[in-house]
């Protein structure tokens, strides 16, 4: 008993000593220079319309694909996620792969943007940007990539203007909202969106952040910072952590009418996957999406669960569709070191394989033998949602 008693004090003294060393090192790091800049890949703003900008990243290694890629991020948070750190930058991977990349910067909506609808974003800003790129490069079609809500916009756009899109890539994109897998889907059905919009105009970014933190407070409010304290002597960890914090709390407001329509038409009535969603005079008919589609989603995504993403390809008119499920979460798909080797290179390869194709899904005759990619049935476990969702 006495020996154990002495051991306890000995261990306590040891812990205190370790803590002191750690605190000293932490002080050096936090008070010293930290490289926490995000979105450091050089770009040029080539077009601007109201608050929306079009950024252009030039391909690094000589001429690559002739067809440029336009990336459309969500209206929630910022597109800087794709270029968070130099060694984990989706943009840099694309540029190294020879892609000519354009990215839409939705900017920071103000009160005057509160009346902008989904139609204004898709058939207005997106269409103008696509036309600008087509004219600039002298081409008829471009490649389109959408992320999260941006992917939903891309799906809508591709169905309304299929003649302008060569290949479509959707990433962690919610298209089916008839699922209870994600908490957001459960909550959004009960939330009075009309009252929120009538009160706030635009939905405040801070309110949305609070909602996202509430999805898992144990991990996002407590455990995350415990992890920081544990690794606070690692400069690189601290820098990456601060970069992530900079991005995650950089939340623009969401235009009110867009929010209202998204909640009503998507979360409540699930019109998108049923091809019943209307943007003004345009009907979003998924059968009109006839270009090749690569649909990537994350198995452990708590914001856009697999059941929300994986059914898209079953409803398209395209014969060249592919689903890819990665073992990661909603944000990990872009920043996890493991998926960095899987995610962006896969997109580059996929686009390169289809670069030489003409309309109709047929491959142009080249020197080598090539085959037409057939429709790949999505693999996945049967769920209650499967029974409800039928093409």
């Amino acid at each position, binding site marked *: 008993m006495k020996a154990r008693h002495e051991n306890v004090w000995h261990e306590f003294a040891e812990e205190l000593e370790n803590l002191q060393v750690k605190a000293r090192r932490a002080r050096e790091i936090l008070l010293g220079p930290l490289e926490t800049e995000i979105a450091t890949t050089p770009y040029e703003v080539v077009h601007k319309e109201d608050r929306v900008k079009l950024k252009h990243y030039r391909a690094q290694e000589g001429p690559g694909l002739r067809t440029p890629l336009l990336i459309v991020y969500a209206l929630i948070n910022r597109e800087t996620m794709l270029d968070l750190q130099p060694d984990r930058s989706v943009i840099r991977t694309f540029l190294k792969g020879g892609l000519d990349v354009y990215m839409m910067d939705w900017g920071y909506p103000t009160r005057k943007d*509160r*009346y902008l609808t989904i139609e204004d974003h898709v058939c207005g800003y997106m269409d103008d940007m696509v036309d600008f790129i087509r004219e600039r490069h002298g081409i008829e079609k471009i490649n389109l990539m959408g992320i999260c809500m941006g992917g939903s916009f891309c799906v809508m756009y591709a169905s309304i203007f299929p003649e302008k899109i060569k290949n479509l890539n959707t990433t962690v994109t919610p298209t089916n909202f008839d699922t209870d897998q994600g908490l957001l889907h459960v*909550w959004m059905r009960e*939330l*009075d969106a009309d009252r929120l919009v009538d*009160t706030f*105009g635009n939905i405040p970014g801070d309110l949305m952040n609070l909602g996202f933190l509430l999805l898992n*407070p144990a991990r996002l409010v407590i*455990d995350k910072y415990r992890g920081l304290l544990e690794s606070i002597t690692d400069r690189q960890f601290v820098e990456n952590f601060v970069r992530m914090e900079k991005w995650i709390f950089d939340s623009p407001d969401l235009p009110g009418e867009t929010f209202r329509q998204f909640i009503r038409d998507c979360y409540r009535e699930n019109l998108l996957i049923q091809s019943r969603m209307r943007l003004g005079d345009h009907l979003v008919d998924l059968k009109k999406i006839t270009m090749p589609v690569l649909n990537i989603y994350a198995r452990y995504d708590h914001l856009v669960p697999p059941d929300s993403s994986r059914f898209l390809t079953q409803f398209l008119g395209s014969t060249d569709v592919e689903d890819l499920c990665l073992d990661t979460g909603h944000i990990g798909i872009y920043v996890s070191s493991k998926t960095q080797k899987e995610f962006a290179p896969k997109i580059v390869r996929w686009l390169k394989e289809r670069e030489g194709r003409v309309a109709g899904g047929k491959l142009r005759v080249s020197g080598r033998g090539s085959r037409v990619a057939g429709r790949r049935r999505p693999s996945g476990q049967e769920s209650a949602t499967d029974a409800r969702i039928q093409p």
Partner: protein
Amino acid sequence: MSATEAAIDLWKEIVGGLFARAWENAGRRDLPGALVANLAFNARLMERFVHDVHQPPSEALGKFIDLWGKEWADFQRLWLGKTPELFTWPETGKSPGDGRDLFRAWSKFYEGELKPLLNIPQVGLARFYQEKANCLMDKFHSLQRASAEFLEMLAVPMDESLRMLRKEMDRTREASKISEGLKEAYGIWINNLEKLYQNLFRSPDFIKCLSSTVSALAEFVNARMEYVQQWAKAAQLPTIKDLDEAYRELYLLKREVRSLRVAGCELRTERLLATKTQGREEA
């Protein structure tokens, strides 16, 4: 002389004495002497006052005290009678309920007793301002109540996870080092906490509470805006409503311009195609 008359005489002496003596003495240019005389006079007045206070109170004073004392006691009995649930604790051995009995009791009390006071129709020139102020107070209270209930719900998994941790630690007391023990304990606690929160967040009670909290927030913000806007209007400043109207018109104008531009482009394209076709046919 009655107590009232004595009080009036005393008052007259005080007022007369304080000013008259000092004025007289200052006129004779004997200011120090005047001040001393004044202080002595004030001391005599104070002695008289203290003496009078210790006299038996008159009948009128007794009746006055009786009346107010009775009213105060009745008032307390009335309000205690209306709020028994606020002061009721669960009996020993019985379940403490879902922990929201206090919120329900307070809501019942507020809706029944306090809110009608805020809804009393206002009169006069400032009636609209007062009405909006009352509405703001009401919505502020609603927000506080909803937030308190929401936070109380969020605290439940925290309590439960700590209870579970204690049980687990009682069960496994062996740990080779303090730090390993702490890490293990933290790991158990955070996992339990996460699971408890996930269960809570899917429960209908929580969803209802979340929805009502968000609604209460929206109502409060609206009431606050209404209250502030009326002052802005009085000060001839543009209000949020004015700006929203202007933005709406601007938005509609821009849409109109865009649709005209698109229609113009399509028309130009059609004419160009028609001209080319015609040119080819002629050729």
